[in-house]
């Protein structure tokens, strides 16, 4: 009796699975007939889909970066998919700017079927994932993780932003040309790779160019609750320009305290400062006159920038895109250009795609929102011209 039952059940199952097959096949045909251009159905035309993943802080102290990068990437993906041809399936995971969480995010994306990694947003996360992506030979183009050590980890890792020492060095160049004779104070985060890298690049170049550094002070992740001493040290040393190679959260604290004691030097930040105007409750008048290095200016009048700004604003409730958003956008386009140039169809494994992209990135040159003629050296580090903006009336204005 049991055997008969088992047999019937098995038959029923087989029948059901056949039924399932027929059904899905028929729906697919009708769908394809109705909307040939719909994404996902393009397989019928012989063009495939590539799965691109990224991880970044979508919550947490650095969430302004992660959310901006994700939205910038989404704008690019939507544009590309609307064109027809090679399609991109995109997924972002939250890593809260934490190395351990970034590795879990990387594994989650691999389980999802990721073929190309559009990077980690923060340096710490990127460094944590780097050994894994090298072992997997997973192509990894980071929008904003800028440690020099990162690109050197493996030949599959490329950067869309400057390395920290390179950015620090160009900051020193800008200071020496725009603010000749300034007495410079520096406050950096000695427990952070990004900040220390910028500081080292700045220090070396400043010494070379004869920039007078009158005070250098630092803080650590554990002692950043109170930064008043560091500000006082710069003031006591008579610094009239304070270089802040740090993130915007701590910078907003420094600006607040400096205004309380009426200390008003020129504050000069790097790309980590981008986001300071969006801190909830922050009095943006305190940031008036702040200079920060950023390769992207949302006020630029060229068509590409304006079209991006409009689409980004529609996606993010009117938020003006920052440099991170533009980096994210450029990352997707750089990957897409390389994928199409290499005739990738999406059926290849992650490792095969990686080898093809490496060959493309060695020779290609990209024009994007964050610069034109951007190209990569043999280590995967980018070269493009540095630019800076000044905060005036609560918005960025290109530095004269």
């Amino acid at each position, binding site marked *: 009796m049991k055997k008969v039952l088992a047999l019937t059940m098995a038959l029923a199952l087989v029948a059901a699975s056949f039924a399932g097959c027929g059904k899905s096949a028929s729906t697919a045909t009708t769908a394809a007939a109705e909307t040939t251009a719909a994404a996902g159905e393009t397989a019928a035309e012989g063009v495939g889909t590539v799965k691109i993943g990224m991880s970044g802080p979508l*919550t947490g102290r650095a969430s302004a970066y992660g959310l901006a990068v994700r939205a910038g990437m989404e704008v690019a993906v939507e544009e590309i998919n609307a064109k027809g041809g090679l399609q991109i399936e995109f997924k972002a995971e939250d890593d809260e700017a934490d190395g351990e969480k970034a590795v879990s995010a990387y594994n989650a994306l691999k389980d999802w079927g990721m073929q190309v990694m559009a990077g980690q947003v923060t340096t710490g996360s990127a460094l944590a994932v780097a050994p894994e992506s090298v072992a997997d030979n997973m192509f990894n183009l980071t929008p904003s993780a800028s440690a020099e050590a990162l690109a050197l980890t493996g030949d599959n890792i490329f950067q869309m932003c400057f390395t920290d020492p390179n950015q620090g060095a160009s900051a020193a160049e800008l200071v020496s040309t725009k603010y000749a004779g300034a007495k410079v104070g520096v406050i950096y985060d000695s427990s952070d790779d990004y900040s220390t890298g910028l500081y080292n690049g700045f220090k070396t170049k400043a010494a070379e160019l004869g920039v007078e550094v009158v005070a250098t002070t630092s803080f650590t992740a554990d002692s950043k609750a109170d930064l008043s*001493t560091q500000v006082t040290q710069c003031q006591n040393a008579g610094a009239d320009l304070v270089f802040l190679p740090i993130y915007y959260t701590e910078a907003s604290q420094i600006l607040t305290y400096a205004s309380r004691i009426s200390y008003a030097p020129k504050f000069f930040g790097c790309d980590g400062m981008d986001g300071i105007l969006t801190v909830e409750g922050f009095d943006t008048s305190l940031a008036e006159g702040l200079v920060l290095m950023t390769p992207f200016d949302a006020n630029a009048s060229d068509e590409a920038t304006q079209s991006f700004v409009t689409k980004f604003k529609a996606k993010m409730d009117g938020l003006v895109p920052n440099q991170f958003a533009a980096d994210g956008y450029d990352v997707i386009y750089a990957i897409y250009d390389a994928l199409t140039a290499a005739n990738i169809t999406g059926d290849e494994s992650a490792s095969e795609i990686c080898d093809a992209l490496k060959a493309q990135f060695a020779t290609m040159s990209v024009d994007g929102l964050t610069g034109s003629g951007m190209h990569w050296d043999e280590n995967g580090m980018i070269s493009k011209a540095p630019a800076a903006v000044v905060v005036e009336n609560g918005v960025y204005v290109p530095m004269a």
Partner: protein
Amino acid sequence: MKIIQYLINGISIGSVYAIIALGYTMVYGIAKMLNFAHGDIIMVGAYISFCVTNYLGLPVVVSILAAMAVCTALGMLIEALAYKPLRGTPSLAVLITAIGVSYFLQNAAQLIWSSSPKNYTSVVTFQPLRLAGGQLVITGEVIVTIIASIVIMVGLTWFTGKTRTGKAMRAVSEDREAAELMGISVNKTISTTFAIGSALAAIAGVLLCSTVPTLQPTTGSMPGIRAFTAAVLGGIGSIPGAMLGGILLGVIETFSKAYLSPQFSDAIVFGVLIVILLVKPAGLLGKQVQEKV
């Protein structure tokens, strides 16, 4: 002149530590437990005050009162739910529970307010004091924090020394069973202690964020640990000790940042703590209690 400015900076952050340490020390002195969630109640207080002023547009005084009310209720709730059932169990169990409550509060805050930092607008509006031709600046926050910490210290000393509830608290602190036999409700007394400690935490939160404007779910944890250190330095359980410990810690921290090394300032602060505890194991003003075997 520079050295005096650093001293002022040190006293400024030190008096914030002192207010937090007062809450720590009071709960420890009476309930004999380390409430590691104290730092996070501070954070909740600051968020409540931030929301009341920024979202409801109410005056600062109302926001402070609202923060105190919410924190008092929260403190009593935590005590009733998490600590009361563990009374009589080894103190290690309560300690671990307190750490759990601390994580719970941080994550709940992250859910409610997200972890993006907010910039807390200082509740102090008057202009900084300028001395010696503008070379010395004493900000309004420093003055308010120091006055508040002194008022709280004196108030607590008076309260525990003179009032009926205060006397009951000291009785519970000295011998819980004997106090119960004398007709004191131990549960009620400890609950009151938590209520007062949490109300103080709300004030500490407002003053901490007025001094250091960045407000995020982890805002309370590092100052909380420092304040705990300050309480131990001054002699945990001693009210003037918490005040002294807090100010000392702030000053040592600032001086080591300014003159020795910002990277090693923590190592220096905790090094001093170790030396002091080696010489005076009960802390600077702590009472050496003989354990009867």
